[in-house]
């Protein structure tokens, strides 16, 4: 399952780096709550993504269908509970901004999309670019 691990590593580190950089900018602009909300949301987004990746082979390779079903359902319940934590924390505490916490929980998805869109628009592959212009 090395490709899965590589994918997890790539997008999780991208998401965390982006959150830290944007959070640092917020802190410099004296917006600590915005920074904390974003980083909190991103951390949980990363946990969620890692959990999807780690339970995926177990779900498929499980010896019995009962165990597989239990793993799949358990994973969904656990992950959704996990994703609720930053939102509830941001609603309850003024130290975390709700909007940036919400943006944070989509950080991994945003990074996946941004990475592929960058490849699509700024690819240096000349064959692909030629094809793009010809068509």
């Amino acid at each position, binding site marked *: 399952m090395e490709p899965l691990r590589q*994918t997890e590593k790539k997008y999780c580190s991208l998401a965390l780096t982006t959150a830290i950089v944007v959070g640092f900018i917020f802190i410099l602009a004296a917006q600590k709550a915005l920074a904390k909300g974003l980083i909190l949301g991103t951390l949980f987004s990363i946990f969620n993504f890692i959990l999807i*990746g780690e339970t995926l082979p177990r779900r498929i390779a499980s010896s019995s269908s009962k165990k597989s079903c239990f793993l799949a359902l358990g994973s969904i319940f656990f992950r959704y509970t996990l994703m*609720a934590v930053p*939102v509830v924390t941001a609603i309850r505490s003024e130290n975390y901004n709700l909007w940036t916490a919400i943006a944070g929980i989509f950080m991994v998805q945003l990074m996946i*999309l941004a990475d592929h869109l960058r490849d699509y628009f700024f690819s240096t592959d000349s064959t692909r670019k030629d094809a793009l212009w010809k*068509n």
Partner: protein
Amino acid sequence: MDWDIQTLTKVSAFAGAGMCMGFGAIGAAIGEGMTAAQANEAVSRSPEQSGDIFKCMLVGQAVAESASIFALVVAMILLFTNFSPSYIMVAVLLSSGLSMGLGAIGSGVGSGFPAGAACIGMARQPAMSGRLMTNMLIGSAVCQTPAIFALVTSFILIFTDFSSYPLSPTWAAILGAGLSAGLAAIGPGIGGGLVAQTSCLGIARQPKMVTPVTNLMLLGQAVSQTTAIYGLLISFILMFKSFPASAEWAPAAALLAAGLCMGIGAIGPGIGEGMAAQKAVDGVARNSEAIGDLTRIMLVGQAVAESTGIYSLVIALVLIFVV
């Protein structure tokens, strides 16, 4: 059991949150299940590609899940925020929950189509894995647009102060707004997914046609999303137009009916237009020389399918402005 306004507001917040997450889970679960089913088929066809297929399934499921995470966010806000108790707030909380819950169904199902098709495509054409993943992600992201419209409507409903508006018919306008944006998102989400699914399969079939197939997919998806925009439009009119106070039921019923009319009326055209674009994309992948004719037929077909959505829009506008 006493039913004072505070209790009623809390009950509506809980009911709104329950409907939001309950409905919101339907689409994503179906979409993710379809992705997994197709991934299984792909692995059984080409076991040596299992690494790439799992990777595609992981990324596809993560994107398909976004719509239900939108629903989760709205449900949490409804559950854990202290709302000022009022009768209008009761309608606001129910409407925002319905809007996001219903709005997540189509996008969740729709996003599952391209993710599954990309897995199948990778088994057929391993050399195109990277491009299939990009195409799948673009297609899935566009499928999320109607759910984002519903999310925007939910947030506007929750964070706008409607307390200065007259209770009747505003309660009906608010409920209509949520239903319009939520229901109208179902069809376009599924329709957009159908187009993206075929484009992934088309790229795997004919790798040379990757650019026209992706471009036609985007055009087809853009047109299939228009009825979701009508739903959003009616929702905005219902939320932001001030209606004179009325003690009668008829004006309130007209506003509620406007939201329902547009919401339900947008489901069919969204799916139908997606089907039209699906076959056009498939045709381009099979016969690149017919791209001009195929695009023309697709657009004409979509325009005709769109007409029923336009009828719904017209009737909704009549219900709001004339009746």
